[in-house]
């Protein structure tokens, strides 16, 4: 997508940016997207958001402008990014990641005419009359894959690899554990976080993900769930080498992971960031934008488990049963 900029005459100043030319020619809505660290192409969280934008481009004819965060950047850099998107005329701004919470809050106050969406945050920091706070019930989706892992394990031991030990990733772990314990109260769960904030390299350390998962497989676990972004690739490699199974995260990784490891991905906890993004854009276009927190939970179809590959077909009914119980509230999944 980025290659397009080479087509622009040097010096024209208005170089079209990543992905901005992919959409239809319609003079639709102008959407600015501020990614978290990693940006478009991270094969993970940011890519899911990008997918939502791409869909909006092709289906709704909106125009997009994108920029990504840098590791360890200052708060002011985030604020400035949002402001520059607005200055460039992209007056519907999506901030991807909770790091933007404060910036969105302030930018929203300073630009009351601009519509904002923020992913993964529903705190007072980012709240505003022109802000949609999009959050996901990661713990609910994780509960389901946790249950799936417990149902499938032969060794009564499963694992969880977290990229960076943040509260957000902790939600995945807690839900996963609850799901597994709901099926087998005595199940043993190995947990490993690759790095601690503010060292976010745990989302990019394939080798560490691999080492962690290998350790789990070799000490008896047979299914490992990862919430480790790019490091998850290492978990899959380890599963493949050990002849064991893994669980993907965010998107349906049995479809997106490298072809040779897809068969070890038993299921994935799908977090539909793309849906959140698309819905926001659509709502703004429709004029049905509503400020406030929009929770994408199981009930709303914002999180789910995937069935690609058919490896969980045999337990699907049990999983759907749990799903129903969560939706109707008879099971409350803890989130921390």
């Amino acid at each position, binding site marked *: 997508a980025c290659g397009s900029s080479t087509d622009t005459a040097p010096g024209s100043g208005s170089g079209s940016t990543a992905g901005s030319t992919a959409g239809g020619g319609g003079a639709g809505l102008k959407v600015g997207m501020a990614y978290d660290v990693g940006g478009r192409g991270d094969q993970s969280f940011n890519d899911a958001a990008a997918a939502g934008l791409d869909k909006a481009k092709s289906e709704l004819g909106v125009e997009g402008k994108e920029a990504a965060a840098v590791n360890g950047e200052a708060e002011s850099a985030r604020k400035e990014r949002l402001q520059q998107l607005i200055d460039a005329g992209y007056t519907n701004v999506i901030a991807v990641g909770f790091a933007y919470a404060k910036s969105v809050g302030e930018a929203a106050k300073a630009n009351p005419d601009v519509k904002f969406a923020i992913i993964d945050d529903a705190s007072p920091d980012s709240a505003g009359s022109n802000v949609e706070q999009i959050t996901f019930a990661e713990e609910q989706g994780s509960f389901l894959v946790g249950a799936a892992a417990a149902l499938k394990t032969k060794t009564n031991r499963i694992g969880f690899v977290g990229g960076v030990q943040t509260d957000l990733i902790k939600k995945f772990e807690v839900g996963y554990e609850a799901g597994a314990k709901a099926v087998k109260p005595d199940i043993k769960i190995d947990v490993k976080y690759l790095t601690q904030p503010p*060292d976010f390299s745990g989302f990019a350390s*394939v080798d*560490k993900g691999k*080492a962690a998962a*290998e350790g*789990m497989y070799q000490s008896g676990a047979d299914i490992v769930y990862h919430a480790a972004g790019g490091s998850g690739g*290492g978990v899959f490699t380890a599963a493949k080498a050990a002849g064991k199974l893994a669980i993907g995260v965010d998107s349906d990784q049995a479809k997106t992971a490298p072809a040779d490891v897809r068969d070890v991905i038993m299921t994935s906890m799908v977090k539909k960031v793309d849906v959140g993004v698309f819905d926001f854009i659509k709502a703004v276009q429709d004029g049905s934008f509503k400020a406030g927190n929009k929770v994408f939970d199981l009930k709303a179809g914002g999180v789910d488990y995937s069935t690609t590959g058919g490896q969980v077909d045999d337990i699907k009914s049990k999983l759907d049963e749990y799903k129903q119980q969560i939706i109707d509230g008879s099971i409350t999944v803890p989130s921390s």
Partner: protein
Amino acid sequence: MSAAGLQAADVVREPEAARSRRTRPWWFWAAVVFGAVVVISTVRVLTGANDIDSTGALRAAIGLAVPIGLAGLGGLWSERAGVVNIGLEGMMILGTWGGAFVGYHYGPWAGILGALLLGVVGGAIHALATVVFGVDHIVSGVAINLLGAGAGAYLAVRTFTGLPGGGPTQSPPLQQLPFIGIPGLEQPLEDLAAKQWWLVSDLAGIVGALTTRVNVLVVVAVALLVLTWFVLWRTAFGLRLRACGESPQAAETLGVNVYRYKFTAVLVSGGMAGLAGGFLVLVASNLYREGQTGGRGYIGLAAMIFGNWRPGGLAGGAALFGYADAVQLRSGGDVIRAYLLPIGLLLVAWGVWQYLRRRAGKRMKGVPMVVMGVLALLWFLLSSSVPDEFTGMTPYVATLLVLAFASQRLRMPAADGAVYRKGEAS
């Protein structure tokens, strides 16, 4: 001329000359290693922390140690020639991009060359700044870290975006380099290791990790280590190179072209660091990923200093770090707890010995050790595992502890970091 007079003078000088600083013989180190295995094996049997030296843990350790070792080797080449190289991290990042880019388009073998080459480019910049322009070595190194990080990321955006499975921060998956091993050994060793016998299973685990399913690039790395030792300490080229790090003026007055040796050394240094990056993309991860080096260049530098600017020592430092990292990544809370036992005992013993040996005034030096040792032992007895929050620190704490107890004999090349200009011999 009076040979007798000379003898007399030599006798007079004896107090100085007597202080010889020979390095320890190889069997000393062999004995140390074997002793360590015995201790570890005993601890394993006593505590049941079987992952302490399992083949898997050791394989992971090797995988984590190699990039650090290669980076350290890069540091060694450059610093032995008198050029401080804090820019290893940047050169490594360049290597990751080079390895991935070339590896993707021309296959993993070519990828090795790509990584090497990009590292050499980083080395060339450092050499240009430090050797040709005589810039402060640390400044140049810091600049190269910035440059490497920026260039790697920038190039990745330009070259990986739009490739299948690639993106601005990530390359497409790369082909694997082959693994090799001594055929027919894997199964028997694995069986033996599984028996969990004292010493026997441990040795089987170690031999297994070293002889089976070893990536070719690991073999290359080990070969480079040995080759480095050979070239630097057993050839005329190496002698000249080291002389440039010890006394460039002396080398110059004997007809050595110091600039050329320094330049070459820094290029090789870059190549090694690049290869360290290449290992990350070609073996450890099978793809490029922004931020993948995660400060390993600095750790490599630390390993080299740890190893007293010697290949064997730096291999030891890298191995220690890699092993500790592997253990902690493999959720090794129980293994780390197991280590509290020998460490506690060692500290107590050392402290007591200090107390007994020292003169009255300095006896108290042993006391803190005993206290620390007792605390370690208590921790060992009262817990079943070290909490996960602490295991992550293990490699760093272990390195610091080892240094704190064994440092002091470090000696860097005498002219390391000094800017050399030709024609200043006097």
